[in-house]
């Protein structure tokens, strides 16, 4: 007789997470700009402008720092990260914490925007500008996903990750 309390295999968890990510991403993709921008873009833009102590021009969500103007568009919203973060939580069987993906997205995206604006004067105009911007974004989002994954699979009573159980 098989045990009903045995954890599902990792492949099942991964599949569940991938399906959740895909579903959430499609859902967010279907939402219009008028919904996504206030939900995902306004807060990071407002906080970034506040951090640099410059006015935020609405409704374009633009702020001027130095000689550069930064605009928070939908492509900077972090929707994919939100879907992935929720998927990580769902894959780790922490359904009740799936809502935390949204504030986590706002927080990580805010940090990414601030760091990108701070680094922009040094990389703009170089041949590495686009790749550096992309790399910086991946650094923040992937780092957050890794940290979330680590916390998600950490079991305090064992002190090891689920893989090492």
């Amino acid at each position, binding site marked *: 007789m098989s045990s009903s309390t045995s954890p599902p295999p990792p492949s099942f968890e991964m599949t569940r997470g991938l399906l959740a990510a895909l579903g959430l991403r499609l859902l967010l993709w279907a939402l219009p700009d008028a919904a996504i*921008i*206030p*939900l995902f873009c*306004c*807060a990071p833009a*407002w*906080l970034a402008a*506040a*951090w*640099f*102590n*410059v*006015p*935020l*021009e*609405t*409704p*374009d969500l*633009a702020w*001027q*720092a*130095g*000689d550069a*103007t930064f605009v928070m568009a939908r492509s900077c919203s972090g929707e994919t990260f939100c879907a992935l973060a929720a998927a990580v939580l769902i894959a780790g069987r922490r359904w009740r914490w799936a809502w935390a993906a*949204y*504030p986590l997205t*706002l*927080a990580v995206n*805010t*940090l*990414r925007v*601030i*760091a990108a*604006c*701070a*680094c922009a*004067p040094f990389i703009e105009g*170089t*041949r*590495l500008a*686009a*790749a550096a911007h*992309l*790399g*910086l974004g*991946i*650094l*923040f989002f*992937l*780092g957050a996903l*890794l940290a979330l994954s680590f916390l998600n699979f950490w079991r305090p009573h064992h002190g*090891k*990750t689920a*893989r*090492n159980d």
Partner: protein
Amino acid sequence: MEKLPETTDPVRTFLGRRAVFALTHLVCPLCTTGLVGYLIWLGADAARTPLSPLGLYLWPALLCASAVAALGTGGLFRASRGAGVFLLSGLLLLAFCLIFLFSFVHDAWRDIPDFAVGTLEIYLLFGMSLPTGMASLWWLSSCPIVGEKRLGADMAATIAAYVMLVLFGSCFLRLGAFISLGELPTLLVCVAIALAFFALLFHTLWLAALGHRALKTRFPAYGFCLRVLTVAGLPLLGLRLNSHIPFPADFQNIWCYLLVAFCALTLLPPTCERRFVRLQYFVRWAAFPFTLYFFLVFLPFLPCAALAILALGAGFLMLAPTFLLWTHVHALQESAKAIASRKTKVLLALAGLSLLPLAIVAATERDRAIVRPLVEAVGRPDFTSGRDALPMDEAAARRAAKKLFDCEFGHTIPLLSLYRERRIFDGLHPSQEVIDALEARFGLSTDENPSGDVFGALTRPAGTSRRRWQSTTPSQNKVAAVEVRNAGTRTPTLAFTLEKSPSPNCQFSAPLHLADGVWITGMRLKLPKDGEWKSATRRDRRVATWVYENIVSSSRDPALLTLDSSTEGRLKVFPLDEPREVEIDLLMPTPEWCDVPLVLGDTEVRLPGIPEPPAFEDERKAVAICFVGADATKPLPNADLYVCGGPEIAVTAEPPAEPPYAKEAVNAKRAHQFARGYAYAHGLRIARVDYAGDGWSRRMQSEAPRRPLPLLEPDDPWQLGAQAWQLAEEMGHRKDKSRLFVSPIRQLAERCRVLTSAEALIVVETEQQERALAAKDALSRNADLAFDITQAETPHATNCSAPEFLLVLLFALALLLRRILRLPSR
């Protein structure tokens, strides 16, 4: 080859296979060597760099070193014992040197074509050299002197293998050159870089943890020394470095140093057992906002700390706030354990947490209470109290002025400066006139900190004041054609066709010269999209200029017409990607000015004569307007005839002596005594005082709210005359003669429908711009004259989720607080 530890991880098992292991730890280093050779081949033709004399020795040396590293890595894995720490550290250093070397080549040798030194190649090199470093770290972790391998090492090796798999795939796609997948290769490489970075980070943390455990065991004082370093040494070193490199802001403030000392004093002593435990708990919470603030300020740059450490050795000081927070939280937990009552802990925590924020709020309110009266007094001088009167004593005024200058031109720190500015100035900034007056009065300087704010470019263009953004839109002033419509009447219209500009994002900007006595009553711009004519609206000049410049930056269709005097102005139209048509309506009071050409840029326009006789010319042929407006209930004991707008005065009137006009009358007399003419409007009676000197200013008092409003510039008596003329016409048709004293200049100008130098005609394209214009205009109506409304934020037109995010943040902080306080009682 070395046997990898037994594990149930299927991924690691796969990566442990010989073929895969050889691929990731042997082939890749050889590829690194090849890429270095490629670099040398590329650089052979570009030997003009400063390194060229040394390059003959440097490049072969690097090539050899890379080859040794590549081959040695393979051999090391065959060794049965751990390799020397120094050799492995050298390999790791070499790997990072190659990264920076390639970056240097990439930027220094610009004549190398992009395809030869593309972005991907850099990351390939980075990725190829990384396994060398990974291998070094792996062996470091396996050395007997540092103990057994832990999770960090496992993750590092695993992730390094992922990196290589990804890079090989990327390399294949790239070399294919027959398959175009857009940004995918770059994306994969960036992912690989990020993974490798985290692998390094984890392994470094693991090494640090091992070292910490070893030192803690061997040296009893290690814990205390580490604490001193964390709470005092690193923060002070960070502040010292901040004085040279003000990143991310300049924190060279006595309060920062004092708070660091206070924080250290609260955290260094061991946790009290019984006596003073509550006091210690309270002061530790009192210092916590300072620790948390700096952690939040440096949080966005935490992932870049590793790069900062490599680029600038002292970059590890960026981690000082994180270490301080860690230590502080532990200290709070220790103190909490010593207090039994949970209620006591909560109350002490809340009291301590609120201490520093309340102090900041109190200081801000105090500054607001002294700075605002000073600004208002300087912006609107009260001559009844004396020319240089201030609402406070000289010393207090000087301190207030210094605070204002610190706020405007001093260093800004994230978040706190925003709060202070919002609270002290309500989001506005003092006007340039106020700044100049204070600078002249107190001898204060608006220069930036001499130490230089390296990162000041983050908030303002280099070499400019933080109060102004500069727009550098290119401009031209070529008029293709001009047509006069309604010629021969008192209200002709000039229709200009502006030439298309060959360069993109170019605006039309040309001076406009009017004849004396010619007024502008309107403007229209033809929008190219649908051919619709859009009429201009008259707005406050600062408002219109600000909106125009902002619209230009977003490449929309605006037009702006301003007057600097009665005869000089400027027309701006944007963009000029095709010929643009603009119409300007004129008002010609007399035919004598038709002979004087109107000039726009380099184009002259002569207006045909007007057959009608002038309507308001007096017998002396002076342009004078006679106007009567009397309050039937309170007739003034003065002449009913007032003359203004002309070079000669026919009748002058004494201002009334009754309140509430007495003060204004006294002000007028005093202003006149200081060579400033003063005219006021009362009951639509415009009286002019003899002006002395070379100019006079006019102010119009309104009843609600009671404050002076800007009037015309001194040099345009004709415009004032035109307004009065229009009002006279209107009053002549009105049957009731009730008072119309409350008449702000804008409403007056609206009735007169002529452009003044205090306003501008602006055309905007979209509804959003109309809303922004109206909102800014409303702000200018309600803002004090002493403040610069162009620096204020545009009111939000869309819902912002910032308050919701703050609620979530507060909720998270509450959970954290609850977690910290929820400790077992004794």
